[in-house]
């Protein structure tokens, strides 16, 4: 089974131009027309140079593990306004 149909979104649901001739319960995937399956994933987290240096120390074992959870939480909390969308393009 291999098919492609078009539809529109209405109130958050996909409405297809035609009914699908497939059994109930069949799982399908919905994507936008310009979906690029080759597109890379990430990054989802931006670190400053200082944070990256600190991360490297943790990641390579030069710094003890005990502070890593706090470090990660701190970086996550600081993400707003870091311009991920600009650097990721």
């Amino acid at each position, binding site marked *: 089974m291999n098919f492609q149909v078009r539809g529109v979104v209405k109130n958050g649901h996909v409405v297809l131009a035609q009914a699908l001739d497939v059994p109930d319960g069949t799982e399908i995937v919905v994507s936008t027309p310009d979906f690029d*399956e*080759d*597109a*890379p*994933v*990430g*990054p*989802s*987290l*931006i*670190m400053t*140079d200082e944070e*990256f240096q600190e*991360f*490297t120390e*943790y*990641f*390579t*074992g*030069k710094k003890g*593990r005990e502070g*890593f959870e706090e470090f*990660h939480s701190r970086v996550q909390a600081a993400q707003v306004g870091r311009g991920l969308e600009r*650097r*990721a393009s």
Partner: protein
Amino acid sequence: MTPVPFIRGLLDTAVVIDYREGWPDPIAFFGTVRNIGFPEFSQITAMKVLEHARDLWELDSAKVYLSISRVHPLNARVADLAQRLLELIPPPSPLSPDDTIVAATALIHKLPLYTLHPARFGIVPGLNTIQPY
């Protein structure tokens, strides 16, 4: 060591694992990479980084590392090209299936490959390789 002027490229698995091991040259190289963008590598490399973890803490920190990187998916197009490369290379192939997945990813995205083994990858037609350090 003379620093290599960095241009955007795909990092081979061994380069990423070298950084994980904390060697000075790879750490300096990754600093250079960050000056122009993000570390970029294949999903097969991401899986190798996860596999490399020896305990749960290392697995968690590896996941954080992947979240600050750009991972190129191992999709059907990449797998098909990787297999074609293996069909093309006269035996015995110097490249493993993982290597050809990395090479195929670089070719599809038209990126040079930063690798510690440029001679080994030199057998791949059209692939531009760079020794990072």
